[in-house]
């Protein structure tokens, strides 16, 4: 997988932990949701921990663990499946302030959707990264100055910008 942060490909400081691997005491690994309880009981509080959730996960069920989670990755099984964008919104609304990562089949043209819905980073298969280099991701992110919608991150809202000009 390749990781995009701030429009650039970067090294991933996190490691995706396979389900059969033991949880390292130093943490800094992303476990599947089914192992979250195990990780929380195994790791000392304050150890960096990440979890990978399906785009159908219940955000309220995850909320009690926000304080212990440094990273939440939401799976994107297909480019046409936009459920992760709503899930990200809800997770942010419920107060998560750690790294929110979109993980899976996203194309560069979805970068701003992800960023505006509250994702910090985007993780894609090497096969997509091989076709869509950093220039394409940067270009997609920079394509627009402002968007219309209010209450979304990363970009000025046209409906809000208008008020500024008129006041």
């Amino acid at each position, binding site marked *: 997988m390749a990781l995009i942060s701030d429009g650039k490909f970067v090294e991933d400081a996190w490691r995706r932990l396979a389900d059969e691997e033991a949880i390292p005491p130093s943490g800094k690994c992303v476990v599947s949701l089914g192992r979250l309880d195990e990780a929380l009981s195994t790791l000392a509080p304050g150890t960096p921990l990440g979890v990978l959730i399906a785009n*159908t996960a219940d955000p309220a069920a995850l909320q009690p663990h926000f304080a212990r989670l440094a990273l939440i990755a939401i799976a994107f099984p297909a*480019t*046409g*499946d*936009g*459920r992760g*964008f*709503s*899930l990200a*919104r809800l997770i942010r*609304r419920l107060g998560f302030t750690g790294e929110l990562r979109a993980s899976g089949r996203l*194309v560069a*043209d*979805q970068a*701003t*959707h992800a960023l*505006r*819905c509250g994702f910090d980073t985007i993780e894609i298969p090497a096969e997509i990264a091989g*076709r*869509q280099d950093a220039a*394409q991701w940067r*270009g*997609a992110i920079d*394509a*627009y*100055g*402002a*968007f*219309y*919608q*209010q*209450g*979304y991150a990363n970009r000025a*809202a*046209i*409906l*809000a*910008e*208008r*008020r500024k*000009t*008129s006041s």
Partner: protein
Amino acid sequence: MNAHDQNHAARPNAPTTTYLYDSYDAAFVKARVEEFRTQVARRLDGSLTEDEFRPLRLMNGLYLQLHAYMLRVAIPYGTLTARQMRRLADIADKWDKGYGHFTTRQNLQYNWPKLVDVPDILGALAEVEMHAIQTSGNCIRNVTADQFAGVATDEYEDPRPTAEFLRQWSSLHPEFSFLPRKFKIAVTGAAHDRAAIKFHDIGLRLRADDAGAPGYEVIVGGGLGRSPFVGKTVRDFLPRADLLAFLEAILRVYNRFGRRDNKYKARIKILVHETGLDELKAQIEAEFAAMDRAPFAYDAEEFARIAGFFAPPPYEVLPAGSPALEQARRDDPAFDAFAASNVAPHKVPGYAIVTVSLKPEGGIPGDATSEQMRILAAASERFGFGELRVSHAQNIVLPHVKQDELQALWRMLAAAGLATPNVGLITDIISCPGLDYCALATARSIPIAQAISRRFADVDRQREIGELGIKISGCINACGHHHIGAIGILGLEKRGQESYQITLGGDPTLQASIGELLGPGVGAELVADTIERLVDLYLAERRPGERFIDAWRRIGHARFKEALAREGEHGADI
């Protein structure tokens, strides 16, 4: 106009009766064009696979059809200026084959663009404040409205400011661009719903509460297609200031829980049906209550800014009637026929609403040549402040014509083959493009429309029959809206042949009903005959003033089925 707008100089000859882009809107559309240009280049060089590119090109209205690509241009709430209509004509000539097709959602389709030319076409559209944003794809589509908006005598409030407000809110929405399926919104502000709001994913009916505060009845889950449903009210009254927030709540629930396993069960109508209305309402209200409303605090202000653009044009003060018109009608039977069917009353005394029929005898419903588009543009400037509308019935409306000038307009239209006096009559047929163009189709639809049009061409006979909406779809997706035609025709495949099922009793208005099937399908050559037998029964049985749909409701479906039973043939075949 507020201080903000004074920063943007008005352009010469620009009408003041519809929304004008400010610098943000212009920059946005320009960025969209350049983004698509890059996307096409990345498709051609393989950076994007077809599977990745498909949703992106659909979100720019670009389909791949049977013979060529098809580009669907958005005509927001069906409103066009003369300048925009001329640009559509120019595009047809430069990049297509000299014509366009007006659709059942108030858009325009070009049937022969090349992929490599589409960015330039979008650029040409952007220059006149047009685009093809989200006219396809699993996102929020063109918000449609009443084609008589602003001028209808039964209008409570102009729906177009709402439609424009929603157009902006829905454009490139970060959360709702990869929905389970397409999402269509329609708005009505009149007693007679000309926008079929009960058959949209969200239908909005403008209304006030008991205190007179402006707002909406919100209806969810209407739709046609494989499983037609009438929409259901989820909110009797939603205050205007809450419109965007409430719609966001609906879309979020749909985005999360709409089905993604089966394309034919993915619309919100299925979610309503399978979840249950009360439960879904509860989910929507819960989401609405949980949302942070602070971002929406100034929506009412922005709405008022937008509404200010939809001011009435500088009408003259005229007497209510026109003796010249009455005399002209007495003198000229052909003009009289046109005035009887194609002219509707206008809320301003001395004016009229003219619907120009794009259904000439034996013609292709909704098609217009580039030359006809230019004539329509010129007609709108000469007779109506340079404004036109596109109706769901695939016709063009000139909404501000002086009654005194109706005959002069009619002569201009007649010279261009645009004066067919059949609006609302049996040959004012709604038809999708069908298998002649569309990759989704199971049968041809246009030749059926043409055959019916020729069979009933006689104007006197049409007037005798009166109001009768025939709607034809070339496949189960129902883009021809056959479910809500008084007579609906659905083209399917049966045993390797095109076969046409007929339904009766559909109604797109607030009286909302879905047509009932007459029986198994018939071959193409029998459709016009069948329609004729149904019409004959109606004419024989009707009471004074009873339209076809009324007679059907009174007489009952069974009588019409009987009328089609044929002696001596394999009678079950209808």
